[in-house]
């Protein structure tokens, strides 16, 4: 075959694929929605169960001190904020106009990813701080009934757990999310530079 006469158009059009019948394609819309729904529901369920448990403690033990109540509210609030931020990312993507030009779409995606990057770090910090503070305040009342020795043990164990979360789990979680996001951002930026040439 003569190199100068390669007919790219003809070769290109030579490729075809089976087409799914319309009704089967539309069935996928539902499967997609369901799988996303399940993911969000599971997180919400986990948070709800914990919240329910905490409320149950409140109701059945009638805490007297304001610190206990404040602790419970802070703990619940921290989970609510975290859960809310988790569920926020999906609608944000959904709202984005998918029929922009590639250049505009890339710019939007990048802006969104950078926002996510900020949100994830900040929110995770807020979550950990509020949760630790909530637990610390909550424990004042129950430990008040204990001997000094057991109170120190209780605070000690909780303190160690909080330090472990703060110094190990939190940075690890942030690093994991950031690596993934940085990777995506890097690739998007790379594509963007392809458009900047010339």
């Amino acid at each position, binding site marked *: *075959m003569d*190199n*100068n006469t*390669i007919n*790219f*158009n003809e*070769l*290109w*059009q*030579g*490729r*075809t*694929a*089976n*087409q*799914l019948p*319309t009704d*089967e*394609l*539309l069935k*996928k*819309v539902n*499967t*997609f929605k369901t*799988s996303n729904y399940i993911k969000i529901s599971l997180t919400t369920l986990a948070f709800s169960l914990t919240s329910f448990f905490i409320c149950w403690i409140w109701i059945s033990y009638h805490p007297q001190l304001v610190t206990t109540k404040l602790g419970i509210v802070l703990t619940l609030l921290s989970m609510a904020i975290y859960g809310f931020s988790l569920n926020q990312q999906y609608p944000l*993507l959904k709202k984005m106009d*998918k*029929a*922009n*030009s*590639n*250049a*505009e*779409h*890339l710019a939007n*995606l990048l802006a969104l990813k950078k926002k996510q990057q900020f949100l994830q770090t900040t929110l995770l910090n807020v979550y950990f701080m509020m949760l630790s503070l909530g637990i610390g305040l909550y424990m004042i009342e129950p430990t008040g009934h204990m001997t000094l020795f057991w109170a120190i043990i209780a605070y000690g164990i909780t303190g160690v757990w909080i330090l472990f979360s703060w110094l190990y789990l939190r940075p690890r979680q942030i690093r994991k999310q950031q690596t993934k996001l940085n990777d*995506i951002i890097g*690739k*998007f930026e790379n*594509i963007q530079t*392809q*458009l900047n040439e*010339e």
Partner: protein
Amino acid sequence: MVFEEVYKIYWQKIFRLCMGYTNDYELAQDMAQETFIIVWQQLPKFRNEANVGTWIYKIATNNCLRQIENQNRFPKAELPVNLAEEKQATSEPQIKLLYTYISELPETDRIIISLELENIKQAEIAAIVGLSEANIRVKIHRIKEKLTQKFRQNGQ
């Protein structure tokens, strides 16, 4: 504008675009299906019927670009069995080569050349990608040169 009609006219075109982008038959089929699901969802809101092609290509190419964050993809197992198994392995090695070479280009070049080979006007390609027409013209020229060179190196 009826969805069935759009789906019928554009299916092969969108599949080829995705195929040029990934050179993976099953992935390309999934991506093309994702595109048409978005089209189906947004078609009721779409007014500018004269430009339905540009609109669909924008959705499709943006979807290609978003494959980087592939956590939004359908689980693989959901493809109906008859479709998954029936791989239309093309008998023509030249066709295979072309798709392989295109999928090796930088992302935006893959999109540009796919649209060009689908006989889309350069002004329209410029609108889809978001570059000037002159820029698109230069790029198409270079990409075609690159592809010809690759074919030549392969001794075709």
